[in-house]
Structures are given as C-alpha cells and as structure tokens.
C-alpha cells in the first residue's frame, strides 16, 4: 500500500473523529438518562457520575408512557401489516405479469410519495374528524400505511424480480393455483426481502411525526408525539426525557443497523442498488 503507516494513522483518526462526533448526541442522551435530574443540568457537564435507574423507573411507572409506547407498537405494526397486505399481491402481479401499464403504475405510485403531506393536511384532518378517526389508532394506521405503501411496493417489486420465474413455472405445471404459487412458493423464497421491507416500513412508521402530531392528542398519540410534549419549557426533565427517548430509540436503531443494506434500495426507489 502507498502512504504507509502515517496515512493509515491519519485515516484512523479522521474516521473515529467523525464517527464519535456524529454519535455523540445519541451517546449524550444515553448518558443523561442515567443521571439524576440535578446532575443532568449541572455545569460543567458531568461525564463521570454515579448512574441511577430512577429515570427509567419513573418513566415506566407513568401509565401514559406505557400507553404511548403501546400506541407506537400498534400503529407501526398495524400500518406495516396493512401496507404489506396491499402491496404483496400488487408487487407479485407487476413482477411476474407485467403489462403495458406496469411502468406507468409504478411511477404513478412513486409520484404519490411526492405529494407533500402538508398539502393534504386540511382535507385529511376534516375527513378524519367527520369519520371519527381523529386520535384513534385506526386513523393513524390508515394514514401511515398509505404513506409507506409506495416504498413497500417498490421494494417488494425489486425483490420479487430477482426470483427466477421458472421456479414458479414448475409449480404451475404441478397444478398449483395462483394463490398457492404466491403463498407457498414466492413468499418463502423471498422471505429475506420481505423481512427487510417490513423492517423499513416499521422504522418509517415508528419515527413518523407529522401525522401523529397533527391527528392525535391523547388516546392514540405515539412516542413521537409524547417526546414532543417535552418541548414545553415548563420543566427541565432532561433525564426523564433522555430515558424515554432512549427507550424509544434503541429498538429502532438496532432494526436500522440490521437492515441498512436493503434499506438503501427501498429509500432510493431502486435507483441505487
């Protein structure tokens, strides 16, 4: 290698510096979650301190926190399931039985994602109010699943296209119906792709903020809305905020790390493989 050890040392230092710089806010949140409220606002900021679990205990004891967390779980799983149920047959059809219109339909689906959410805030709010969907889990599930649907269809489509049609062909010869073909052959074959798609959908729904802030108040509010409620300047509950935020962040961070490779494909709509 050219450059030698000096080059390598410089690279290592630079690499670790940016990595720690980018990660330090998250690390700081993590550290703060183990401080007492007084230690959390102390200057100079304490790096060494006696860790406490009292914030986690306090957060978990709050009945509403548990409800917000359950709402987040219900909404992200519900939206993902609904989106997958709609998208799997559609992606199957477009990947294995393309027609003249397939390309147009795919691009049209993508174009729905271009619609800024804020452009339809007013009608959605009024419709949800009239149908009694405001501040309900169902209401949020409906809107979140529609939000991720184009990405889910695109990702599944690109995974399904990697399955050789001959395999499905063979099962057809053995007398399998179309539904058999989809459920017993295609789904097991493309399980990794389906799992990656579902993970991405869960991540996006879990972190979704616009609709949860605008369409929910108490009953169906998710963790995004809950953490936003700490924005009010009335109290400095940073340690508790950090504990609540850490709990809300860690599972999704792990999901993200696991699926980052496939995620790129979904987020770029296949433009980058």
């Amino acid at each position: 290698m050219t450059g030698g050890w000096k080059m390598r040392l410089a690279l290592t230092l630079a690499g670790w510096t940016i990595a720690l710089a980018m990660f330090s806010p998250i690390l700081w949140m993590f550290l703060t979650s183990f401080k007492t409220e007084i230690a959390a606002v102390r200057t100079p900021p304490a790096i060494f301190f006696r860790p406490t679990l009292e914030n986690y205990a306090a957060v978990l004891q709050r009945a509403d926190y548990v409800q917000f967390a359950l709402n987040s779980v219900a909404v992200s799983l519900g939206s993902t399931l609904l989106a997958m149920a709609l998208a799997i047959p559609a992606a199957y059809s477009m990947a294995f039985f393309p027609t003249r219109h397939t390309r147009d339909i795919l691009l049209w689906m993508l174009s729905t994602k271009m619609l800024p959410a804020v452009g339809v805030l007013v009608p959605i709010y009024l419709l949800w109010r009239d149908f009694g969907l405001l501040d309900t889990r169902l209401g949020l599930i409906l809107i979140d699943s529609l939000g991720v649907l184009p990405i889910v269809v695109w990702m599944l489509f690109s995974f399904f296209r990697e399955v050789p049609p001959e395999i499905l062909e063979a099962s057809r010869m053995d007398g399998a119906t179309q539904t058999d073909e989809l459920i017993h052959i295609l789904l097991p074959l493309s399980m990794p792709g389906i799992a990656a798609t579902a993970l991405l959908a869960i991540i996006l729904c879990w972190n979704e903020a616009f609709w949860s802030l605008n369409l929910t108040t108490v009953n169906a509010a998710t963790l995004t809305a809950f953490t936003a409620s700490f924005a009010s300047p009335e109290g400095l509950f940073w340690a508790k905020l950090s504990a609540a935020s850490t709990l809300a962040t860690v599972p999704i961070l792990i999901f993200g790390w696991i699926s980052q490779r496939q995620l790129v494909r979904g987020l770029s709509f296949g433009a980058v493989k």
Partner: protein
Amino acid sequence: MTGSRLAKRPRIRTAPLLGPCVLALFLWMVVPLAMTLWFSLERYNLLSMGKAAFAGLENYRYLLTGRTLWVAMGNTLLLVGLVLLVTLVFGTLFAVLLDRDFPGRNICRLFVVAPFFVMPTVSALIWKNMLMNPVFGVFAFLTRSLGLGVFDFFARAPLLSITAIVAWEWTPFAVLILLPALQSLDKDQRDAARLDGAGPIALFYHIELPHLLRPMAVVAMIEMIFFLSLFAEIYVTTGGGPGLASTNLAYLIFRDALFDWDVGSASAGGMLAIVLANVVALFLMRAVGRSLEDVR
C-alpha cells in the same frame, strides 16, 4: 432482456391483485388533492359562523400579496438548499473516508449512520435542550470555557440552528446511499489509478466523484421531497419563531389550519406546496424512470 424473461407466462387477471393497492393510493392522493383545491377557492373558516362560500382566487391573492407567504417560501428554499449542501458535502466526505480501510471501520460506519434512525422529535430535543441550550447546554459550556461567551442559538440564528439539526439527521442518509455506491466501484480501476501514481485527492476527483454523481443526484432529490415538508424539528424547537424567522411553508400551513382554523387560506398554501414539490418531483421521476427501462 425486455419481456423475454416472462415470455411464456400465461396471461392472468391482474386486476384483483393490483386493484386494492391502486385504489387505496388513488383515494389517498386524488380525493384529498381535489378537496384541497376546492377548499382553496372557498372562504371557509371553522371558527366563523355560517357555511363556506365560494371565494374564487381570493385566498391566493391574499397569500401572494402578503409578506408572510414569501418569508415562509424563502425560509423553505433556504432550509432545503442549506441542508442539501451540508448533507451532500459531508455525506460524500464521510462515505469516501469510511470506504477506506482502517481499524474499527465497521463500528465507525454504524456510528455515522445512527442519527438517521432517531425519531425527529427526539433528535430536535436532544439538540435543543442538551446541546444548544444557552444556560445548561454543552455548546454553551464549551464556548464559555473558551472565553467566547454564550450564543443563544434559537433566538439569534433559528433557521441555521434547525439546519444544523436536520443536517445531522440526514447526512447519514447520504452516507447510506453513497457508501454502497462507492463500494460498487470497480476495484481494478482504482488499483490501476494508484499504480499510475494517483494520490488520494486525484483518485477522489477523477474516479470516485464522477462515479458518485448519479447517486448524489438521487440523494438530493429524495431529500428535497422530505425537506419541503419539514415540520417536526420546527414544531419542537422554535415553533416557527422568533416572529416568522423559522417558519417554513409546512409550518405556515399548519398554523393557518390548526391554530387559525382558516381552511381556505391553509388549502391555498397547500396547493402552492404541492406545485413546488411537483417541480422537484419531475426531475426525480425522470432519474428513477431510467432504472425501470428493462421492465417491458
């Protein structure tokens, strides 16, 4: 390639498979869009008595002749442009750096992409409370110990502070897309260039950067779509203030709709946001359409 892969497939009825998905997206897109257009032509406030009345282009005239919309529009474009610039420059640098081989590279990669997976309200609050707070924040402590005094970020430079937060969240996205793109670069080509005596800078400029241009365009366009409706970060930090200093189009519409309950005005703003997004979308669609050329 075209079609040959599926030449022998029997034709089937695709409507029952595609129908539900297409219908759901159609209802989601077309119905609310039509309603936004309709409301934008009405004098319609949820707080005032009486029914909505047709108002023609009055909402648009009111918006376009007032100062608020233009301030918000300017803030929107400034925010989008700045974050885009920062995320692309840093994203490219980080990707090139993380593509090189050094001890702990894989852990560094995980650390760098992590902020993208933190929910936007949490990111904004970490920055607002623990880093940028003028009394207790880490930044204030650092500047004070350096004898520089304290800078009240959200009061003095609200838009730039929000830019910093959003750039922190989205630089990982650029890295996520650009790093695999770099790794797909032909290794022989790089080795050949090195053998010809190309240093790291020449290597970057003549080989890596040209290879990254297309993925960079994709990053730019996808980010633009998201940044045009940037909302949560403003909502939890500045609330659009002080004054209008950090109000973007999305926040303005939210304020008109859910604070003033002015459906007509908010809808007109919504239509303008949609027009703006569509201009951007046109470019993205063209880029993505190319990746579909082998479908039929």
